[in-house]
């Protein structure tokens, strides 16, 4: 057995996992209509690649990744896209985001499923496949899984996270109990892509059935993976903390686990990787726990995009339910409405009532009892952070490592004064981020303003010089015979041979300007990023197109700028 380490702090909230593990995972019935957000992963939102009215097949790509940190979004079933618009999603802001509405046709007709035999594939090819299949971390962080396979350093240990430390949530537990074989196959795929030797599967010791099931699957597969029971302690399922417990390595602050030779995947992610590679199925469904104030708490396998209300209906919410929480009670978010759709990050939905989760008593002043500091798994001083966040002293808060806070809520859980500590930290963090952003924008603006002034100055000088040159040339020309004047005149406008030096000068300047316009791009596009240039080009193209249309419409060859052919 390997030697387990421990981390500072942690709490033991009542787990409430028994309720939802009594019955097996049930496939949720196909909803009539699904709402699929295009931002279901960390990073850039996916770009829609389907049209409204288009018929899509199950597993068909409907949103493609944009930029390096992004992922794909697929149609969870076959049907018709009826809208692509802003809709409410599961986010604490209650702000809407871009979603596709898919009316299912009930056929569940799969599109092409490309299966691969991973052993012949390089890590690169597997990464591409996972990205194409929209595989993201299903533990809650929804970080694109392909990015986690890309690492510059040698990774020698793969940690598989089956800890599931949050109360109420049992989706990973049930998945391990029922589909251990698939998980193990998925782990082997990830191990192959990472090129590691050691694989440690960490499961909290309050899930004995899951541990047994996983152990059996590992034994049957004859892979040298180790299933390790880790002590139940919230937040032991935080990747960095699980790595510490299993390997003794403390991932440095601000670094990635790969920097210390470890990578960590959730069991559900491993299972999704298995489905993607060996069955060619993109991520279109997930296991979700429905529990709390419901008659039949249990786990469902539900399609992404299923409105939560349908799941809650299946489990029958009790009468006094007054709100719903997505995720666990420690880190979850309150749903703005119960009909928002299930996303890849949704591991659990808890029906809550004031009896189940009594509203906290009014916050009292901090008495500096440091119970929070004793509970903090990151060894922060939450009481100091609270003080700084409360007084908007953001610089100090950063000095006291605010950004190392994982928002686990252990501090607020133990605080005898019932202070909403985590909310203060979230507030401070988003303020700091916004300010950083503003500061950068201001710096950029200052730089660009200064550059512009410099440019204007330079252009003035150049103009003066050019004029002086012209002046000289003209003087020379005058000095020469009037008959030779055409020699100096530019060939651009041969008809313009006149003795008037004034006219000559204008012509010369015009020619020069034309020449410049043809050869050099406009000055103020010099410092643009390629993306911005591309955008401008796209707009120019549109414009050219409009011109063409106008020309075709029979206008003269110099179409008016206002032409609005369409």
């Amino acid at each position, binding site marked *: 057995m390997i030697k387990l380490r421990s981390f500072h702090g942690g709490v033991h909230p009542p787990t409430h996992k028994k309720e939802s593990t009594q019955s097996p995972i049930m496939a949720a019935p196909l909803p009539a209509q699904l709402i699929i957000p295009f931002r279901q992963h960390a990073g850039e939102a996916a770009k829609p690649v389907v049209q409204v009215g288009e018929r899509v097949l199950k597993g068909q790509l409907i949103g493609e990744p944009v930029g390096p940190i992004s992922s794909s979004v697929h149609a969870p079933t076959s049907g018709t896209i009826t809208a692509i618009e802003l809709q409410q999603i599961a986010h604490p802001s209650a702000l809407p985001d871009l979603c596709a509405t898919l009316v299912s046709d009930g056929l569940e007709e799969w599109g092409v499923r490309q299966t691969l035999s991973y052993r012949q594939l390089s890590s690169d090819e597997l990464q591409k496949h996972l990205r194409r299949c929209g595989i993201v971390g299903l533990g809650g962080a929804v970080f694109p899984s392909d990015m986690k396979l890309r690492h510059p350093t040698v990774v020698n240990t793969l940690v598989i996270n089956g800890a599931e430390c949050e109360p109420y949530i049992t989706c990973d537990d049930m998945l391990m109990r029922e589909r251990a074989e698939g998980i193990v196959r998925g782990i082997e795929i990830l191990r192959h892509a990472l090129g590691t030797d050691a694989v440690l599967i960490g499961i909290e010791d309050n899930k004995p059935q899951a541990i047994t099931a996983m152990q059996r699957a590992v034994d049957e597969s004859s892979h040298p993976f180790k299933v390790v029971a880790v002590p139940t302690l919230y937040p032991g399922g935080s990747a960095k903390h699980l790595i510490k417990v299993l390997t003794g390595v403390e991932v440095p602050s601000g670094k990635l686990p790969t920097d210390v030779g470890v990578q960590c995947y959730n069991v559900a992610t491993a299972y999704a990787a298995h489905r993607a590679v060996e069955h060619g199925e993109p991520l279109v469904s997930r296991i979700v726990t429905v529990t709390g104030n419901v008659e039949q708490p249990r786990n469902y396998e539900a399609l992404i995009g299923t409105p939560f209300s349908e799941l809650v209906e299946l489990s029958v919410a009790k009468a006094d339910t007054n709100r719903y929480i997505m995720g666990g009670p420690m880190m979850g978010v309150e749903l703005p409405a119960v009909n928002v759709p299930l996303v890849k990050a949704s591991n659990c939905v808890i029906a809550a009532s004031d009896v189940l989760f009594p509203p906290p008593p*009014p916050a009292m002043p901090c008495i500096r009892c440091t119970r929070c500091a004793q509970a903090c798994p990151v060894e922060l001083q939450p009481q100091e952070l609270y003080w700084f966040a409360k007084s908007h002293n953001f610089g100090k808060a950063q000095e006291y490592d605010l950004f190392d806070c994982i928002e686990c809520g252990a501090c607020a859980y133990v605080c005898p004064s019932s202070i909403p500590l985590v909310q203060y930290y979230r507030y401070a963090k988003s303020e700091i981020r*916004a300010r950083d952003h503003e500061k950068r924008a201001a710096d950029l603006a200052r730089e660009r303003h200064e550059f512009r002034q410099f440019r204007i100055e330079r252009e003035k000088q150049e103009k003066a010089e050019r004029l002086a040159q012209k002046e000289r040339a003209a003087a020379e020309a005058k000095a020469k015979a009037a008959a030779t004047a055409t020699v100096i005149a530019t060939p651009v406008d041969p008809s313009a041979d006149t003795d008037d030096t004034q006219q000559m000068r204008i012509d010369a300047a015009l020619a020069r300007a034309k020449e410049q316009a043809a050869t050099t791009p406009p000055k103020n596009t010099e410092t643009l990023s390629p993306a911005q240039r591309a955008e401008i080009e796209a707009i120019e193209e549109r414009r050219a197109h409009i011109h063409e249309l106008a020309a075709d419409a029979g206008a003269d060859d110099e179409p008016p700028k206002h032409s609005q052919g369409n």
Partner: protein
Amino acid sequence: MITALWIMIALAALLGMILGYASIRFRVEGNPLAEKIDAVLPQTQCGQCGYPGCKPYADAIAKGEADINLCPPGGEEGIHKLAELLGVEFKPFGEDAQPKPKAVAFIDEQICIGCTLCIQACPVDAIAGAAKQMHTIITSECTGCELCVPPCPVDCISMLPIEEKLTNWKWRYPVFELRQTS
């Protein structure tokens, strides 16, 4: 008594000398105050303060010629920062200088005639396009100064307020409920 007095005087003289030396020895070149003020200003470069840009306004404040409550884009927070930096009292905005919600300029591509007038007006070169070609605002660089709006001969530039979106949403300050229970 007399001795004590002498000692005090000697001490004062010594300290004075040290301070005087330090001020010569450690004097900073240039006008760091104006630069510090400039660093606090929002760099919108809109001229609403009555100066042709943030730097001139900063210089004016540093020289004591301008008040600290003239920059609407900086908001109240900006005044607070200036007050703190300069060690003076906070001063609210005047009637005619109220901050507006942040916005970016938008050019209607269909109407623009490519006259370059807005390009010449934009203090941060946030408008791309050449003569007789349609112009576009580079949103990420536009400071929302509105200087490009009046010169446009066909009125194709409008200011769009920046809406709260998922990407710029911020967690709110927790409501402290102490008073409600009494």
